[in-house]
């Protein structure tokens, strides 16, 4: 249970830096000279997962230094690398511990690890294991063979929402700035002379931003396949506009304010849905680059217009609605 709570809070970034394990050779069960050697990162959640999935088995775990980052991201950033593994093999004196010369590597380490170069560097050859730790027992029992079903990544609803928690942590500073900006704008409005006026207008504006944030971070990932466009920013625009319509219908007082809420909500949802690309296992650098160039101007225009509508209506209320 304590580990569960730890797992949730570490995703939210609480105590994130304590989730590193000292690199080196670890024993699971009572391994001998013929036991397999598994290589993994030093993120505590990953090592916990391996211990759970491999309970009751005897094997060696070679933990490499990835600075507490998971296997895939560490491989992408090249801290989980061929040289790092070779260095840890030598430091642990692995050739004296086991008689075989084979390392089982996590498949998702492959962006950083060239298995064909390992043998020359440290005398051990690398075999890529399955993507998921829960397939490891089957992989070991099948004489280190992984079928296509063990080789492909999935992205189920529970996984999509779990990684969304990481986005909450990533967005905390940005949302802090948005909060400050909302109150600053409220200060410029006609209510700026009274504390209640600022608090009301600022909270209203931040509420819209927060709704956009929650839409981009949770609703878009939850309905990822249902929203019929490819670009994440576009998915966010659609979901955010729907959420904005709902907000406007419930809270809006007149059309300029409703339009402002709709545009701001769509812009924020689009921005955060776009950032969710970093949590998915299938977007490419080129693809995300393209959608950012295409949709960031749209987001910016929406925000500028939303702010203008909001301030204009706050100052000139009735004359705006009658005049246009």
């Amino acid at each position: 249970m304590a580990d569960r709570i730890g797992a949730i809070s570490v995703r939210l970034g609480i105590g994130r830096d304590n989730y590193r394990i000292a690199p080196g050779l670890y024993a699971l069960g009572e391994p001998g000279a013929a036991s397999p050697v598994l290589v993994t990162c030093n993120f505590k959640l990953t090592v916990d997962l391996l211990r759970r999935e491999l309970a009751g088995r005897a094997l060696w775990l070679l933990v490499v230094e990835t600075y507490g980052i998971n296997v895939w991201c560490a491989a992408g950033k090249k801290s989980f690398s061929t040289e790092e593994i070779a260095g840890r093999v030598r430091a642990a004196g692995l050739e004296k511990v086991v008689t075989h010369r084979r390392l089982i590597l996590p498949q998702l380490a492959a962006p950083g690890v060239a298995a064909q170069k390992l043998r020359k560097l440290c005398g051990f050859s690398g075999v890529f294991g399955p993507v998921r730790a829960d397939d490891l027992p089957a992989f070991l029992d099948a004489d280190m063979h992984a079928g296509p079903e063990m080789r492909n990544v999935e992205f189920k609803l529970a996984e999509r929402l779990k990684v969304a928690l990481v986005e909450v942590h990533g967005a905390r500073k940005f949302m802090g700035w948005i909060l400050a900006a909302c109150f600053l704008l409220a200060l410029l409005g006609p209510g700026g002379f009274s504390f209640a006026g600022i608090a009301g207008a600022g909270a209203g504006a931040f509420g819209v931003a927060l709704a956009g944030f929650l839409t981009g971070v949770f609703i878009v990932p939850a309905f990822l396949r249902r929203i019929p466009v490819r670009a994440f920013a576009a998915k966010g625009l659609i979901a955010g506009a729907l959420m904005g319509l709902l907000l406007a219908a419930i809270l809006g007082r007149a059309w300029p304010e409703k339009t402002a809420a709709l545009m701001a909500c769509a812009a924020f949802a689009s921005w955060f849905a776009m950032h969710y690309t970093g949590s998915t296992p299938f977007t490419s650098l080129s693809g995300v680059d393209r959608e950012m160039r295409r949709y960031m101007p749209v987001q910016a225009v929406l925000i500028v217009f939303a702010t203008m509508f909001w301030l204009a209506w706050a100052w000139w209320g009735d004359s705006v609605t009658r005049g246009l």
Partner: protein
Amino acid sequence: MKEFRHLENIVTLEYHPDKCVGCGACTTVCPHGVFNQENGKALLADRDGCMECGACALNCPTRAIVVRSGVGCAQAILYGWLSAIPFLRRLFVPDACCS
């Protein structure tokens, strides 16, 4: 991944079958089944499924695969752009997600 798809026709993945020796490393490491093995050679089966992680290119012994690899992460790309701007250079490090 067949279930989730990002933009079509955009990845930088290049495959040169003439250099392939059929070792199967690309098929093994790819998490999206982009390559298949057929008649002793790799076959580029699903180019648009590629996420440019670079695993295949790195593990190819004959450099038959070329890809501009990187992470498909908006924050990393954004920080990359911001860190190229003179004043903001001090505030943003390129490639600064997941750290």
